């Protein structure tokens, strides 16, 4: 049992961080905080993959001319790409948040859903009123 904990504790720590990030994304309504939670989630996923790639007694994967044991370089490459993609997503998400703030006046999810529902309701009633007046004028003409 103790051996299981010692050999797998890295995964459990990472899963705890992942769940913290997921909790922020799911439960908080503020859009900036959601993006922060997404960032935490991404960083914890990176830690998961890099910790899989670590080899006991290995060093950084840079050749020095002496034969040595290296940590697996393949996860490093994949995570490098993932980090850059993550920052691109964050930048685009933050730009969207700025524009949402300008149009809706708030960045709380509840306010935005309320504003959308109100607009839909107004549109629906306007459409209904237009249809009714059309019917009336059609009825009056015939």
């Amino acid at each position, binding site marked *: 049992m103790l051996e299981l904990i010692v050999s797998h504790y890295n995964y459990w720590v990472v899963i705890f961080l992942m769940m913290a990030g997921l909790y922020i994304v799911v439960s908080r309504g503020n859009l900036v905080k959601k993006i922060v939670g997404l960032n935490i989630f991404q960083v914890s996923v990176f830690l998961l993959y890099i910790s899989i790639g670590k080899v006991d007694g290995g060093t*950084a994967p*840079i050749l020095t001319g002496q034969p040595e044991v290296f940590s697996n370089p393949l996860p490093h490459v994949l995570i*490098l790409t993932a*980090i*850059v993609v993550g920052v691109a997503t964050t*930048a685009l998400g*933050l*730009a969207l948040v*700025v524009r949402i*703030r300008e149009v809706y006046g708030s960045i709380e999810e509840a306010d935005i859903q309320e504003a959308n529902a109100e607009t839909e309701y107004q549109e629906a009633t306007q459409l209904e009123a237009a249809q009714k007046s059309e019917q009336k004028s059609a009825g009056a003409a015939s």
Partner: protein
Amino acid sequence: MKHHLVLRVITKTLIPPILLFALYVQFHGDFGPGGGFQAGVIFAAGFILYALVFGLETARQVVPAGTLRALVAAGLLLYALVGVASMLLGYNYLDYDALRADDTAGQHLGIIVIELGVGITVAAVMIAIFFSFAGRPPRIKDEDW
């Protein structure tokens, strides 16, 4: 930030080493940790520091908008063109053995050129994004923080 004398002096002293470090990281990516992405981000950080301390307008004069947009595309184009050059010489796309008579020298050349392309695009994109964010009039004044 014009009245913060210490900040201005330190920034003026620090920005050239930052840009130099970015170039170092770019070209020594083969021999130590580094490469295109890191170098591009550090280069952009130098410019962002300049924009923060000396004002956005001065920074926009240093890097005009048209040049920035051209640079964003140029890096990606450079990367893709290296691959096309390999194809034109008869090998596969992005096969760097084609670029020189000796395979290893071809690999070296190919890696340096594409890392340069990556660095240019990443730096230009980061600077452009920062200028876009900073160019909007702020809703919260400095005193309200």
